[in-house]
């Protein structure tokens, strides 16, 4: 390998996950359970959230408030977010009760927590960006809470423009990046086995990855 930064980056990218684990077409037998579905359901909901959000950004507030199609896309955006949080919380319950941080998966757990908290912030700024009386009321209720934790000076919930920019640029970028990192870590270390499964600490388990 030549000693260049491009070769170094290529080497790191190609060794992020064990060979064949980036997009696997087979999974361990224990994954054949509905409880393992909610992670990818969260990802699917996130894709709909982002897609409908892009359409809303194209049309703008007047469009989503006054046209039939705008109302529909606005509702798709809202209900995909509701579904996103519902399946993400069920995913969280499942992973909590199977202690999914086992087997060097601590960082996977932590990135999931960060993704959850960042998603709450993204949804919150979304409610503030509706440009209607509800967003006005929510921002009025939220300002004291935000001020009480000392960030109201630069994160002003009464400033709709700032909240809209956080909602459509900064926070989606953060959620997207942390979600990618979370998924890479899942593929790197493999799906956590059930508690007491003999594969849990088997060093030769291919899903543990020799490149960790």
């Amino acid at each position, binding site marked *: 390998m030549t000693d260049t930064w491009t070769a170094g980056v290529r080497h790191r990218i190609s060794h992020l996950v064990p060979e064949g684990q980036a997009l696997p077409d087979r999974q361990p037998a224990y994954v054949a359970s509905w409880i393992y579905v909610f992670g990818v359901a969260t990802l699917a909901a996130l894709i709909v959230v982002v897609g409908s959000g892009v359409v809303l950004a194209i049309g703008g507030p007047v469009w989503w408030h006054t046209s039939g199609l705008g109302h529909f896309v606005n509702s798709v955006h809202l209900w995909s977010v509701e579904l996103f949080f*519902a399946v993400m919380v*069920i995913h969280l319950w499942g992973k909590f009760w199977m202690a999914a941080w086992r087997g060097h998966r601590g960082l996977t757990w932590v990135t999931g927590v960060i993704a959850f908290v960042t998603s709450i912030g993204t949804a919150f700024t979304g409610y503030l960006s509706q440009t209607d009386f509800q967003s006005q009321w929510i921002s009025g209720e939220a300002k004291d809470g935000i001020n009480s934790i000392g960030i109201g000076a630069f994160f002003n919930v009464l400033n709709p423009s700032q909240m809209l920019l956080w909602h459509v640029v900064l926070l989606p970028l953060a959620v997207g990046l942390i979600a990618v990192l979370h998924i890479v870590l899942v593929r790197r270390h493999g799906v956590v086995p059930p508690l007491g499964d003999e594969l849990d600490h088997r060093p030769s388990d291919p899903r543990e990855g020799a490149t960790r």
Partner: protein
Amino acid sequence: MTTVFAAGKYLSWGVVSISLTNLLIIVAMVVVFALALVLPFPRDHHDGHSDGTGS
């Protein structure tokens, strides 16, 4: 057209207060969680080779 938003029903136990709607949603999520644990997952009957290790 005027849309009137009625105040929802709220349930209170001491300092705990929750809207009936939110409570029902949480209950539904718990039910889905429980069903996910007990319902059998459909398997591909044509896939005769299942060594449990993936690849």
